[in-house]
């Protein structure tokens, strides 16, 4: 019996569980100890977790704890970054995941107003700690939501990159901005993705930018064109090159972010109908699932994950 996909980040990364427990207890010193013990990738994961808090009651409690921490120390890097990221996530939930033409004007106004509230917190956070990569990464996302243009998003990206030149979260945020659906183009998207892959050390997670870019491109194409695009020799070659630089590289490590990366390769191998390669990624994952890329591939992430996994295992066995 194959395991049911588990989307909870805490299953893969115990740090997330520690954060939740400390926040629930209002134990700020514990949050700070955890924050201080992690690298920027780990802190980014904490920020994701703060963004995922969305249940009524839990949201208010989280905001109260974070605001109190800022009250006690306006320069607290963890409190500013986590609060900013939480407010951004809340803003995006107002907007809903729908494309712009389906979002009403009033929702847009509220979405933008909430993003500006988050920006206030994060401007303060980056002013106090110019090296706060997590806060800058969040500000790249805000630049996208407020549509302030590619140049301003790049400025924010550069501030983060100066501290951590291979911060995958920041690269993924900026990568969205260079998609044609925001302010970029296919040329910009693929060039950026490839450039960041090659800049990172071999075996690093960053090569995932390349398959993500192809998934973005694939999603925009019509059903007649998309499969042909993905299976063209040029695109295939790039995807395999990316796999060889990351998930198939001997230096690849299961550091924070690996679950997302492995899910992306499982998904794109499945779309390429390379079931053997996909099965390898699913086997590495076990139950560990991320929403992306399954949200792009199917209507329900869990069902899509399981369907694609069974296809991979059956295909690989043939």
């Amino acid at each position: 019996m194959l395991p049911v996909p588990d989307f909870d980040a805490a299953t893969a990364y115990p740090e997330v569980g520690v954060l939740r427990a400390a926040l629930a207890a209002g134990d700020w010193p514990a949050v700070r100890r955890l924050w201080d013990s992690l690298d920027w990738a780990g802190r980014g994961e904490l920020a994701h977790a703060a963004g995922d808090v969305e249940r009524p009651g839990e949201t208010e409690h989280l905001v109260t704890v974070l605001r109190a921490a800022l009250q006690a120390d306006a320069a607290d890097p963890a409190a500013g970054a986590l609060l900013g990221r939480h407010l951004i996530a809340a803003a995006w939930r107002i907007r809903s995941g729908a494309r712009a033409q389906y979002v009403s004007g009033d929702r847009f106004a509220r979405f933008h107003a909430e993003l500006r509230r988050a920006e206030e917190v994060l401007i303060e956070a980056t002013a106090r700690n110019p090296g706060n990569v997590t806060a800058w990464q969040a500000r790249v996302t805000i630049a996208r939501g407020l549509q302030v243009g590619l140049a301003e998003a790049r400025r924010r990206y550069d501030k983060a990159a100066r501290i951590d030149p291979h911060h995958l979260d920041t690269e993924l945020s900026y990568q969205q901005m260079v998609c044609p659906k925001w302010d970029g183009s296919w040329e910009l998207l693929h060039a950026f993705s490839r450039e960041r892959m090659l800049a990172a050390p071999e075996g690093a997670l960053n090569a995932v930018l390349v398959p993500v870019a192809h998934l973005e491109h694939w999603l925009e194409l019509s059903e007649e064109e998309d499969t042909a695009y993905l299976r063209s020799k040029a695109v295939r070659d790039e995807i395999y090159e990316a796999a060889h630089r990351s998930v198939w590289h001997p230096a690849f490590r299961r550091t924070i972010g690996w679950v997302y990366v492995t899910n992306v390769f499982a998904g794109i191998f499945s779309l390429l109908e390379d079931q053997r390669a996909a099965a390898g990624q699913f086997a590495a994952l076990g139950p560990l699932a991320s929403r992306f890329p399954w949200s792009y591939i199917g209507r329900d992430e869990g069902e899509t994950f399981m369907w694609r996994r069974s296809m991979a295992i059956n295909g690989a066995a043939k």
Partner: protein
Amino acid sequence: MRAMPARLMEIDGVPLLRATGPGPARAGLAFRAGRADETPATAGVTHLIEHLVLRRLRAAPGSCGGGAPVLTTFATQGTATEVSAFLTGVCAALADLPSTLDDARAELRAEAAARTPTVFDSLAVVRHGVHHHGLAGMPEWGLHTLTADDVRAWAAEYFTGQNAVLWVTGPELPSGLRLALPPGVRKPVPDATTETGPFGEFRPPAHDTIVRDEVQPAGIVTAVYAGVLERAVFHATGRVAGDGAHRVEARYRPRGDGLAAVTVLAEVFAGNPGPVAGEFLDALAELRAHPIREEHVAAVVAETDRTLLRSGARLPEQAFALLTGHPEPPLAELRARLRAVTADEVGTLAASSQAAELLLTSWNGLIGPSPAGAAPVAGRRFRSLENRRAALTMDKTAITRTWPRSRPVTVPFASAAVLLKWPDGGRRLIGPDARHVDVEPTLHETAPDVVPAIDAAVPADRHVPLPAREADAIPIPRPRGEQAVRYGGAGALLMGLIAWVLAWGSMTLAITPGATSWPVTLFGMSWLSGFWGAVRLRSVRNTVVAHRRMTRAHSASGRRSAPPGSPPLPAKAP
């Protein structure tokens, strides 16, 4: 010029500020009167008086008039005898204002038409609304209807001996100089403490602009703070803007009520203003968050000190201070205080900068739109002849204008600030929030009783009658089918291109940070009016931008599907 300390004497009850020194005599007769004292219906009367007086003194070379929102100065330079004659002439002209105003009116209209509006015009309205200091950003509506009697009455109230200060530098004036001004009282500076804005929309004249305007106690520390702001913002924005692509300016402007506006702005001449705005806001946050750097304060203090020395005995500034009731110390004391300004003092101002802050941009994005005004009313609805989804809606209390993709604007009749009236029936109602509703009978299916009903509902003291418009200034409806052209991409792009070319032609401004402006813009006059002209282009552009935004694809993606990585609607089934 090495100036002697100013001494305070009087001539015919008018305080005299005096500094001796070499060179020609310079003098200014300053009155505590300006645009901020006017009302919409009398807007321009002070300026009109200034022109009437100077027209009488046409022969006096090197003379001029000038006004800040609370001050009007008649100034000249020349031999002691010439200066003396000028001052006598000003008083005589004020006592004998002409009974026909037409030539002066025409002069002022021409001046208004030729004048290029500045960022500060729009800022005045956004900060203060449609009264007091805000009128400095509005047209001089009163020019058209003020009578000779109105003008004389205004002069009798404001251009009096008790409301004046004379300053003279250079050689002694001939003895026996008389200032024959009527008696009166010192007029208090209009109270602007409740005018915190934002009112209406920020509409800088030409370029993408980001502004931060704050209110601080007037004084030399605040002047230094403005200089520090300019340095910090210039340094930060210089990192992202190419040479010549932008301009940074900070101004310290005492209002005369013990407070000062401290304004810092960046105008972006070419390219995307986003990174400049980003660095601008980050620089302000850094100033709040960290101790002010000593070397910045020292540099600004040195620069300000040089300006103080160049300005001689600062008699115009002292006249301003005296007339507004906040005298400033003698130059030597002022310089000593300046040199004692510490980074901590400046930091205290920076830390409190958000208390009465206005952050404005000419585009929506980092900074949100200004708050919505009064709630729309339901009632009789009059459809636009131009756009089937546009209309005016009116009940007994207010009128609302709706236009697709725009926020509705509502002006309550009882609290309307201004009702502009044209003889052809056109009306413009300006609300207390500085937003307006145009009622053009030619553009709406209005009933005949609508305009009289509005006139009756708006209190009479807000009415501003205007002369008949030229035939081509009365709007005519465009057939509905032409809307696409009027607001569509091609037309707006062309207008944008024309504006850009015009802007480029006048773009030789220096971008080095200049000296902080000093209180009295004596020779830099700020009579305004071309403000509304700039508005149209901006509104067309905003419409196009809004349209593009609404239609652009918007999915957000990222690590998790949960926000901020939320995916688009599920596109492809397994």
